[in-house]
């Protein structure tokens, strides 16, 4: 079981928490990108900050086998 | 390393320079152990938007600073080609600054001797930092032969004017 916690407006449109049964090890960034597309979210994964539960940025090569949950929010709040 | 490939030189491409000064920070961290831009041996000048000009010792073929030094505080590192300053001999008389066509040696409050790029013994910190930042405005090359490189040693305002003319058009 791998869970994603969404923050802010992402939580509003995607849902606060989404848990998935992942049999294979999937790259977390690719997984989030896929989720964004399936929910028709108009932003890209580059615009997001994905961290572990304690606020550490998830490495780009991390997979769903390395972690059990992540937090997903907008990277830049400004601009 | 310099010893195996001969003397080196820092090649600059002004159009790639973002003006970020990470080179100045890296230089001062390396030489002074502190973030101390004024004591950096490389200085980025930017008098107009979008035309930053990094300047540092270009190791002229004839080293006018070395011959101008009355106390023999300056000498050429034969391995790298850099001008090395002996802090115990430098009197801050500024003869080297006057002799330099680009007025590049730096005098900074808190340092008892003139500051000149020493090429970090062949592995310049500024170049590494510029590469880390992905700009590669600075690159280490084998020192070019001849007198051409001396043309880089010009007063910053002159270089800035020319670079700006190219970027901004007027």
């Amino acid at each position, binding site marked *: 079981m791998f869970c994603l916690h969404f*923050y*802010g*407006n992402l939580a*509003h*449109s995607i849902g606060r928490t989404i848990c998935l049964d992942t049999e294979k090890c999937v790259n977390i960034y690719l997984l989030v990108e896929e989720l964004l597309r399936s929910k028709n*979210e*108009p*932003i890209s994964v*580059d615009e997001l*900050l994905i*961290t*572990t539960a*304690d*606020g*550490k*940025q998830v490495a*780009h090569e991390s997979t769903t086998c390395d972690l059990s949950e992540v*937090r997903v*929010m*907008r990277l*830049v*709040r*400004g*601009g | 390393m310099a010893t195996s490939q001969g003397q080196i030189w820092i090649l600059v491409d002004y159009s790639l320079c*973002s*003006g*970020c*000064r*990470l080179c100045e*920070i890296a230089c*001062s*961290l390396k030489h*002074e*152990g*502190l*973030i*101390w*831009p*004024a*004591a950096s041996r490389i200085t980025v*000048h*930017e*008098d107009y*938007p*979008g*035309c930053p000009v990094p300047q540092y010792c270009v190791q002229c073929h004839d080293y006018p600073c070395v011959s101008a030094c009355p106390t023999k505080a300056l000498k050429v590192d034969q391995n790298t080609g850099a001008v090395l300053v002996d802090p115990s001999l430098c009197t801050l008389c500024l003869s080297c600054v006057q002799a330099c066509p680009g007025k590049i040696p730096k005098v*900074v*409050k*808190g340092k008892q001797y003139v500051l000149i790029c020493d090429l970090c013994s062949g592995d310049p910190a500024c170049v590494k930092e510029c590469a*880390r*930042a*992905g*700009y590669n405005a600075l690159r280490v090359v084998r020192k070019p032969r001849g007198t051409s490189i001396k043309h880089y040693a010009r007063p910053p305002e002159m270089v800035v004017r020319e670079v700006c003319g190219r*970027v*901004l*058009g*007027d």
Partner: protein
Amino acid sequence: MVHVFGLWGRLLDIDLSSGKVAEMRINPMTYRMFIGGRGLAAYILWRELGRKWRDVDPLGPENILTVLTGPLTGYYPGIKISVSGKSPQSGGVVGSTVSSHIAYAIKACGYDGLVIRGASRDPVYIYVKDGDVEVRDASKLWGLGGMDLIKALRSELGKDTPSLYIGPAGENLVRTAAVMARWFHAAGYGGYGAVMGSKKLKAIVVDGSGPLPPVASMDEFTKLRCSVIDNVVGRATFRKWGTTSAIWGVGHDTSSEPIRNWQEEWHNREEFNHVLIEWRYWVKNPWADWGCPLACMKVSKVRIGGVTYLSDGPDYEMGAYLGSNLGVFEVDKMIALSAMADDLGLCGIQTGNVMGFAVELYERGVLTREDVGYELRWGDFEGLKRLMEDITYRRGIGRVLAEGTYRAAVAIARMKGVDPSEVLKYAVQVKGIGIGAHGIRSRKDYPQPIAYAASVQGGDHTSVAGLPANSEESESWSAFLDSAVVCSFTSVDEDTMIKYVNAVTGWTLTKEELYSVVGPRILTLQRVMLLLGGPDVRWDPRLHDENPPRFYEPLPSGPYTGGFVPREEVRKNLEEYYKQLGWDEYGIPTEETVRKLGLYDLADVVKDIRKELGVS
């Protein structure tokens, strides 16, 4: 605690009325409590002016202008300086940040910042060279725009020296005037350009030749700094296009870009695409600020009617507010207006906000040709140029609009003899501060429905409120970044940011403490000062913790047509947010909370505020 690494613990305290310069010591414990920058500004302003806050005229000599660094200044890639004081826009405290080389230069002089009081009779500029401070004559500089001023200072000082300055807008006490830096950078929110103008202070120039103070842990600092640089360098598309890409994306993709005073938020204007802007207008990319590997800036150049205009990007906010918000869809003209705003020393956001407001009022017949003297039309470059100049020089209708959107709305209502709400319904602002160019109606952009309504800095899009209050969504996070004084574009995850501050300072700050104590402390102090307000504005949370009326109109176009935010949801979220910060149901900090946060002298103040509002 005897020492804070990364900071000197002293500020320059300059009185422009008397010309006296003193040193203000800042206790290490104060830094630990308020971090620096924005938090320290609120602390100093409260300490110095708290008792008479309501009576302090932001444009009077009694106001204090603070120019402060923080523990991350100079150490963390992405340099900023915090500019603050009593805001002539909100009557509260706004921590306005701007990217400027002056930030490291101040630390290189052996100080953490400047506190500027009083007012000079004649135009002056402050020149700091290491330990020496001079208040110099600026009569020859007064009236100059940014470009000419930087040139004049360069020839007077003999070299390119970091500065903060104002253009004619600040001199003329325009409430939408910014404190400017390096041609195109502005500390816009708050209106501190007008505060500098009121002090007859044209510029602050700092030449620091010393090192930055040592850090607590060099090894940890070096490791973190390298990892942050690598992280930022990894943001390849941001580096390539900066925020210019948002001129296309925020409108086209997320439907949250102001168009014609927010009447719409979606566009499909191909010419707004950053790739086309890059090809057509950029003469320099990358272009970066001191110590920053992001290089979000780009220099663009256009020529219109024989005049050359130089601008950054334009960055997103300028592009949106001086482009689409004014119905300007010709990019060269958007760039020209952006360049003009920078040179005149105007905040492009606040000025674009009030200009769009004026054009809509004209369109609706509230303002007439008689009031304005010429026609106001969307996208009319010549007319808009004239309007921007009239605001800067307070000519004609510009005199009213120079007061900013909120005050202009109230004045126009009075002028027209109508109820203020009839005009305020077109004012897209919160608590005197025009809203940044990120709308909430589509819910596809970052600001939450309460982003602006609950912010202690009103419409400031860089300091938005949000739930949960113990995450980066909360305004505590902005308060932290603005107090550590670092750019939000280069900031990384919480864990790293907190470790970074600790590596520099030697503190043991934790995430829990940040969200439950330090952030709420800064926000609570700012909130109380905002609710006190004065002298000409007073905010009632029941009325003013609210979105502008326009945000309750459904979006009329684009993929999110019909989108809006329900009022009930805003109310519910506000109450939840207040609760999480330890404020009562009206958003007034409770006595228990202020005591818990160590803000003991606020206990009586919050009691009084509650009594005044009749909710005690």
